[in-house]
C-alpha cells in the first residue's frame, strides 16, 4: 500500500522551499519597550502598543533593524537601499491589531545564499541554497486552549491569551525554490536549517532554540516527475520544531505527495501541521475562501534607508563564518574528518572550543565532551550544554589528570559527580575523597599485602614473567580504591620484586 522512499525518488524530483522564522534576542520588543524574557508570568510584558490598544503607535527597535541587516550580510544578501514596513491584514485572536506589521514588497535584504554540505553515497557534497529575502515582522501572542482534548485547539471550550510574546521581533528568511537535491532533499533541508542556526548563533542575534520556538521552520515541498519542467503543487508544513523534524517532515511530505499523485489525485495547496509523535503532517483548516491580506505600506512607520556607512559598520562587526571557523578549528586541533563530523553532529564545537580556550588540550577536551559527558547526557536525555558541568570544569579536570592528581578513572567519577550537581570538581574530589594516593609508604604497604596474598604470582614475576604483575597491580588498585597512580604502582612493584 504505502510507498517506500525509494519508490518516490525513482519517479519524482522534489523541490524544496524553506521559510525560517527567527526570534531576535533584543532586550525590548519590535515596536515597544516591553521586555522579551522567555517564560515570564502571563501578560506581564505588555503595554498599549503590543496589546493593540486604541491610539497606540509602533516605533521600530533599532537593534532589530541592525540584527536583520547582519543576518542579511551573513547570508550574502544585498541590503536594499529603501525598505518599508507593510500591514498584513487578517483576523486572529492572538494578533492584537488584527494586522501584522511585516514587510511585503520592500524587504530589508534580498538575494543571498547558504552553502551546505551533506554526506552522500559518493562522499561529501555541497549544495547551494539561494535566499530570496530576509524581512522583519512581529510575533503573535500565545493561546492556551481550555477544555476538550488538553491543549488542542480543536474541541476546546475557550482559549486564554497571553500577549508577552506579541510584538517580539521576528526575522523571516525565505529561500528561493531549491531544485536538484534529488533524494537528498530531506538531508539538505536539515543541513540548511542547521547551518542557518549556526550562522545566527555566531551572529549572536537570536537564541536559536527550536524547542522554545525562537527558530521555527516552515517546509514547502512539491514533487514533479523527473525531467518535468513545471513545478508541482506545494504544501507548506508548519510546526517543525527540531532539526530531526525538518528531515522527517520533508521525507513524509514527499511520500504523501507521491501517494496522491500515483493515485491520480491532486495535491492541495495548503498549510499542514507536523506532528512530532507520528512524524506525519495533518491538514490545517482548509479555507473555504482564499485569504486576501490587503498589504499596504504601514502609515505609522517611516521607511528604512540604511546608508552605506551604517551597513559597512555592521559588515565590519560580522564574526567568522561558521564553515570557515570549522575548517580553522579542525586544522588547529588536527581532528580527523570523521571525528570533526561527530563533533559537529553532537553540537559540541562551541563547548570544546571554550574548553580549549581555558587551556585544555584539544584532543583531551574533545575526548571528555564526546565521550563520558555525551554518554551521561544521553542517559539523561539532555544536551551536553545543559548539563551542570562547564567548560571551565572540564578544563580543570584535564589539567588535574595531566598533573597526575587524578587518574582517568578518578576523573570519570569527578565528572559524574559534577553532573549530578555535587559541585565544582574540587568540591566533588573533596566530598568523595577522590585523590591519587601519592604517599609511597602506604603504597608500599598495599604492595606488601598483595604479595603476601598472592605469593605464587609474586614468584612468577621475580622469575621474570612480567605480565603476571597485572594481577598484583590490580589488587593494589583495589585496596587503594583506585586512588593510586597505576604506573607508579607498577614501578614500585617491579622494583620491589627485583625487576
Amino acid at each position, binding site marked *: 500500500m504505502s510507498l517506500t522512499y525509494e519508490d518516490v525518488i525513482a519517479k519524482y524530483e522534489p523541490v524544496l522551499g524553506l521559510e525560517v522564522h527567527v526570534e531576535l534576542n533584543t532586550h525590548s520588543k519590535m515596536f515597544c519597550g516591553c521586555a522579551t524574557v522567555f517564560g515570564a508570568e502571563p501578560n*506581564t510584558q505588555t*503595554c498599549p502598543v503590543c496589546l493593540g490598544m486604541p491610539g497606540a503607535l509602533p516605533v521600530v527597535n533599532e537593534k532589530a533593524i541592525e540584527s536583520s541587516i547582519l543576518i542579511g550580510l551573513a547570508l550574502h544578501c544585498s541590503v536594499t537601499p529603501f525598505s518599508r514596513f507593510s500591514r498584513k491584514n487578517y483576523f486572529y485572536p492572538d494578533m492584537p491589531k488584527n494586522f501584522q506589521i511585516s514587510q511585503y514588497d520592500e524587504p530589508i535584504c534580498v538575494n543571498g545564499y547558504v552553502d551546505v554540505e551533506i554526506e552522500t553515497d559518493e562522499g561529501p557534497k555541497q549544495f547551494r541554497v539561494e535566499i530570496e529575502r530576509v524581512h522583519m515582522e512581529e510575533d503573535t501572542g500565545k493561546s492556551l486552549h481550555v477544555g476538550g482534548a488538553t491543549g488542542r485547539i480543536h474541541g476546546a471550550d475557550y482559549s486564554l491569551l497571553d500577549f508577552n510574546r506579541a510584538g517580539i521581533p521576528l526575522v523571516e528568511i525565505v529561500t528561493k525554490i531549491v531544485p536538484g537535491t534529488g533524494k537528498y532533499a530531506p538531508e539538505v533541508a536539515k543541513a540548511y536549517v542547521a547551518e542557518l542556526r549556526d550562522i545566527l548563533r555566531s551572529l549572536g542575534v537570536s537564541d536559536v532554540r527550536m524547542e522554545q520556538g525562537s527558530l521555527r521552520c516552515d517546509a514547502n515541498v512539491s514533487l514533479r516527475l523527473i525531467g518535468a519542467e513545471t513545478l508541482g503543487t506545494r504544501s507548506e508544513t508548519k510546526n517543525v520544531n527540531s532539526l530531526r523534524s525538518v528531515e522527517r517532515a520533508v521525507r513524509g511530505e514527499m511520500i504523501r505527495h507521491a501517494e496522491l499523485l500515483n493515485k491520480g489525485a491532486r495535491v492541495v495547496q495548503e498549510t499542514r501541521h507536523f506532528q512530532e509523535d507520528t512524524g506525519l503532517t495533518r491538514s490545517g483548516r482548509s479555507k473555504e475562501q482564499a485569504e486576501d491580506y490587503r498589504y499596504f505600506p504601514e502609515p505609522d512607520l517611516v521607511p528604512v534607508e540604511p546608508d552605506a556607512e551604517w551597513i559597512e559598520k555592521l559588515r565590519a562587526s560580522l564574526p567568522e563564518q561558521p564553515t570557515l571557523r570549522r575548517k580553522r578549528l579542525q586544522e588547529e586541533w588536527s581532528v580527523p574528518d570523521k571525528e570533526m563530523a561527530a563533533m559537529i553532529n553532537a553540537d559540541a564545537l562551541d563547548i570544546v572550543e571554550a574548553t580549549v580556550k581555558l587551556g585544555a588540550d584539544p584532543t583531551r577536551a574533545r575526548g571528555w565532551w564526546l565521550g563520558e559527558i555525551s554518554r551521561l547526557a544521553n542517559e539523561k536525555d539532555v544536551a551536553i550544554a545543559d548539563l551542570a558541568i562547564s567548560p571551565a570544569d572540564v578544563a580543570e579536570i584535564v589539567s588535574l589528570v595531566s598533573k597526575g592528581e587524578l587518574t582517568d578513572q578518578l576523573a570519570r567519577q569527578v565528572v559524574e559527580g559534577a553532573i549530578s550537581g555535587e559541585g565544582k570538581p574540587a568540591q566533588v574530589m573533596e566530598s568523595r575523597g577522590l585523590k591519587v594516593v601519592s604517599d609511597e609508604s602506604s603504597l608500599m604497604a598495599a604492595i606488601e599485602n598483595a604479595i603476601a596474598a598472592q605469593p605464587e604470582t609474586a614468584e612468577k614475576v621475580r622469575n621474570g614473567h612480567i605480565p603476571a604483575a597485572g594481577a598484583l597491580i590490580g589488587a593494589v588498585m583495589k585496596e587503594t580504591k583506585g586512588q593510586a597512580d597505576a604506573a607508579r604502582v607498577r614501578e614500585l612493584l617491579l622494583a620491589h620484586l627485583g625487576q
Partner: protein
Amino acid sequence: MSTLSRADVANLARLARIEMTDQELEDLSTEMDVILTAVARVQEVATSDVKPTSHPLPLRNVVRADVVTPSLTPEAALSGAPANEEQRFRVPQILGEEA
C-alpha cells in the same frame, strides 16, 4: 466602473469580519456603486509616471534604542477585557488555525 454584487459585498464583509443582514448587503452594494463611481475619478490622473505618496512627510529611519521600558501591570492590561482568567484574556473558542 466595476459594480459590486451582493456576493462581492458579502465577501468583503467576511474579510472585514462584520456580520451583515441581507438588507445591509443590499443597501451597501447599491451605495458602493455610487461611491465607487465617484472615487474612480482618481484613475483619470494617476498615470504611470506619477510616484505614489504613502506618507506626507519625508522622514526616514525613525527608530528607538533597544531599551526596556515599564510595561502595564497585568491588572491594567486586563482591565478592559470582556473576560479574563488566570491573568489571561479569555476568548471564545478559536476555530481556525492561524493563517
